[in-house]
């Protein structure tokens, strides 16, 4: 038995938003793989919940008329990784969420829950940051579009204002077209573990596949929130595909990160991981795009 006080069960997003207005203290319950556990631990005991898990309108992935990919927030990690649109256009997102927990957790955990928790280790967050995802946030006043880059306000804090609910995650066509991405999760175990550090890179190469046309790189657990490294991206812009590129990306990444010491790893170790993973992830993304380093 879960120790919560009240449970509200809306049958539509609109009803959910009305319930949230009436009960602003109530928490959104998506897959529950964080909230139900915090209730068990006592941290969220006696809370009120609004059960949105059964709202099918918040589940699924589709291609919009403008070519952007729209991921509804309750889509499970398993469904994200298996979806043909993700496999075709942003396979790295599927590969990243496929490294979360184990099969059971990936069946219940949702991509929206993953980013709304606001933790820096969220495996989907780095790739969504690196692809300039845009969030659709609903309230009774309508829909607000917010770049995911501006969503994280601090550890566990996101820009969801009173009465708001995440209802979509968009990746624009211009953002995913002709890109190849790679994600590396460094953790102590191969499964059921939280990242010590995560790095997601995607590249678009010049037509002759000799230079970087655009590189985007994001890290998890390298700062209080998932972050992009704009310095590394500037260093890579137009760069030839060679060892120097990897050095420049790693140096740029080190300039932007601010990892801390936690029980999982020290700050020094994380800095070493940032440097090495920036290199390796960039190399893998370039190779996936058909380029070769020092080719």
């Amino acid at each position, binding site marked *: 038995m879960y120790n919560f006080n009240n449970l509200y069960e809306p049958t539509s997003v609109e009803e959910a938003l009305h319930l949230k207005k009436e009960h602003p203290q109530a928490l959104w319950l998506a897959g529950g*793989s964080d909230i*139900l556990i915090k209730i068990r631990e006592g941290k969220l005991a006696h809370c009120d919940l609004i059960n949105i898990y*059964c709202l099918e309108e918040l589940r699924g992935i589709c291609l919009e008329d403008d070519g952007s990919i729209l991921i509804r927030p309750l889509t499970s990690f398993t469904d994200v990784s298996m979806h043909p649109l993700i496999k075709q256009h942003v396979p790295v997102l599927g590969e990243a969420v496929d490294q979360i*927990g*184990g099969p*059971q957790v990936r069946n*219940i955990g949702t991509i929206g829950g993953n980013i709304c928790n606001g933790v820096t280790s969220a495996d989907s967050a780095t790739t969504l940051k690196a692809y300039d995802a845009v969030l659709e946030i609903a309230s009774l006043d309508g829909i607000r579009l917010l770049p995911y880059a501006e969503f994280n306000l601090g550890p566990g804090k996101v820009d969801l204002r009173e009465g708001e609910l995440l209802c979509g995650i968009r990746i624009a066509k211009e953002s995913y077209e002709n890109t190849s991405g790679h994600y590396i999760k460094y953790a102590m175990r191969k499964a059921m573990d939280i990242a010590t550090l995560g790095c997601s890179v995607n590249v678009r190469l010049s037509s002759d596949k000799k230079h970087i046309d655009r590189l985007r790189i994001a890290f998890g657990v390298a700062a209080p929130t998932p972050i992009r490294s704009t310095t590394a991206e500037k260093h890579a812009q137009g760069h030839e595909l060679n060892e120097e590129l990897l050095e420049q990306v790693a140096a740029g990444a080190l300039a932007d990160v601010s990892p801390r010491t936690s029980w999982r790893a020290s700050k020094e170790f994380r800095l070493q991981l940032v440097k090495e993973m920036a290199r390796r992830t960039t190399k893998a993304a370039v190779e996936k795009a058909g380029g070769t380093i020092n080719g």
Partner: protein
Amino acid sequence: MANKDIHCIVNGKERVFSVDVRSSLSDMLRGKAGLDSIKHGCDVGECGACTVLIDGRPFNSCIYMAIWAEGKTILTLEGLSDTKGAISDIQQAFIDEGAVQCGFCTPGFIMASIPIIEKDSPSSREEIRRQISGNLCRCTGYEHIVDAIEKTQKKRIEQKKG
């Protein structure tokens, strides 16, 4: 707290359970349906001992709200036996391969392995390990569990080729 009627199919039978809305699926299936193969292990989705299949996919029933089971098709270890109560090939393989020691984790492992043994092409041992990576066993060291799953999958594929 209010009770609610939950309609679902459990091990092939249509059932209705009147549950406290605060119940987990494991509370409902153990407490109301007497399906004791579901173990309350960690209760926080770490150990996999409470694994059941919901619409064919493995879930930790300890972190699944009972109310979410409305309209779902659920399979537990008890549903693997035939109508006469004879155990299934995967259960027999766990016995034959010595994949059971204390036995507490066994139902969860078997349920997590169902999607693998139903595949049409053979899985590597690495793939099998990945599919059971949400389940913990503190006795066997996993090797015999992987053996049992690998052999059952192979046998089923051969049977299908017939």
